[in-house]
């Protein structure tokens, strides 16, 4: 069950839009925060509160990549491998993190602390190579910096 605070938040969200359906995206973020990822139960709760068919929530959740359909680690490490980061060897940054954490891309450490992903451009090309961990950007990366950042999160 969604917490009362979350249910109230959804009611606030409803005031911002002309239609209930428009609230689906912000509500999915609420569910992701509450449960750690997008659960079927959470999606059904959204549908019920908004009064829309559950399928309308399901189809939105599968279209957008930032809704995690599976649990991710406490720290979701997302490294950009698009063009500007690749020119400055973003792939090497992926290797460094992969070795350090002992996991491959798309894997989570056994202690559920870190998930490693590669992502498309995050709009931080002037400070490449870069990565995002949860909501935070880490820019102008090199081996030593990556080492420090990950050690700081342990």
């Amino acid at each position: 069950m969604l917490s009362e605070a979350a249910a109230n938040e959804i009611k606030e969200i409803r005031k911002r839009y002309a239609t209930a359906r428009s609230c689906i995206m912000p509500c999915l973020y609420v569910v992701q925060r509450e449960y750690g990822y997008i659960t079927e139960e959470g999606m059904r709760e959204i549908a019920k509160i908004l009064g829309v068919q559950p399928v309308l929530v399901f189809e939105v959740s599968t279209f957008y990549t930032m809704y995690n359909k599976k649990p991710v680690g406490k720290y979701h490490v997302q490294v950009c491998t698009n063009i500007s980061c690749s020119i400055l060897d973003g792939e090497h940054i992926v290797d460094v993190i992969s070795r350090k954490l002992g996991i491959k891309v798309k894997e989570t450490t056994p202690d559920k602390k870190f998930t490693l992903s590669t992502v498309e451009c995050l709009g931080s090309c002037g400070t490449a190579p870069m990565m995002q961990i949860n909501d935070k950007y880490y820019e102008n990366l090199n081996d030593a910096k990556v080492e420090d950042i990950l050690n700081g999160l342990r």
Partner: protein
Amino acid sequence: MFEPVLLKNINMPDSYKLTSYMSSGGYQALKKALEMTPDSLIQMVKDSGLRGRGGAGFSTGLKWSFIPKDPTLQKYLCCNADEGEPGTFKDRAIIEYDPHQLIEGMVIASYAIGADTSYIYIRGEFSLGADRLEDAIKEAYQKNYLGKNILGTKFSHDIYVHRGAGAYICGEETALLESIEGRRALPRIKPPFPAHVGLFGKPTVINNVETLACIPHIVNRGAAWFASIGPAKSPGPKLFGISGSVNKPGLYELPMGTPLREIIFTHAGGIRPGKKLKAVIPGGVSAPMLTEKDLDTPMDFDSLAAKGTMLGSGAVVVIDDSMCIVKAALITHEFFHHESCGKCTPCREGLDWIVKVMRRIEHGQGKEGDMELLKKLCVDIFGRTFCPLGDGAVMALRGAFNNFTEEFEYHIKNKRCMVNGNR
């Protein structure tokens, strides 16, 4: 030295707060605009020559003028802050460091077109930016720059932030509308254009962040001032984001029409030590690449179009001689393939096929005839889709082909890369 307009506040302490914005003349333009008629505002923006900074370069004033004048109709403004074109990081700077500049531009634009509500569609990854916008909006409400009867006039306006969730296609204006409506972001067919049937079926203007940020300056300093900066047909200050193999990558505000050579060598400090310039993508990855011979091209909409490429978002990506163009093209097309929304068959299936062929060429398994196959796939995708995503992918690939045919051929024939040090 060009005096910054859009980035003038960016180095102030707490530049994102209302107090900082006010200290440099913030919200004066809103006061001035509310004393004008909406029609004279639209005329002013038309006269300024401002063209959309999101990539298409359409006249902003003209776009506003397409909105029906009927006062009984609900209208919307949407700010496109779904900055996702690889290489682009300009709107993020405005959003994070000067959100009030954007908000002021949005209130003026909304007044001009008669919209009582607007949405800022910000890409989901820009969490800091979205938080700063929400805070700035709260501050603006407190001072009655937003809300009911703004500054004692009859005009009321609300702004809401809508966070995306990781889909490049949402930067396409009709996909953006679908996304705000809570659907999968599949582009709509045009016509009808959003100016007539937009958000929730109502007349809607969609403008890029940088475009809207220009508005307060045009109102404050006049259309003639704006039109006097840079080339007559695409004037104004422009944010150029320079990334890749340069000594001083970053965001530079320069007059539209600044030559590419000056941007790379004077402002961005030239190519990294020990490397040579090989190719430049002038406007985000959809823009076909240029080479050394094109460096004197002025960076504006028309001059780049004449070179068969585009200004796009003004994102300059510099590629040096240690980078394999086949690899660069593969990275680019993996991106387009990943981001295709899947609605139109030529884009969905065509990009999948292109990526498969590109991967085998890159990994030394290319076959004779692969070049012809790729060229044919380009023909089959181009112009056959609802939105320009497929076209962008084709243009990027053709740009790589046309300039670096021998690298593709070498890869296919010798099963390896002709660039030293690459696999």
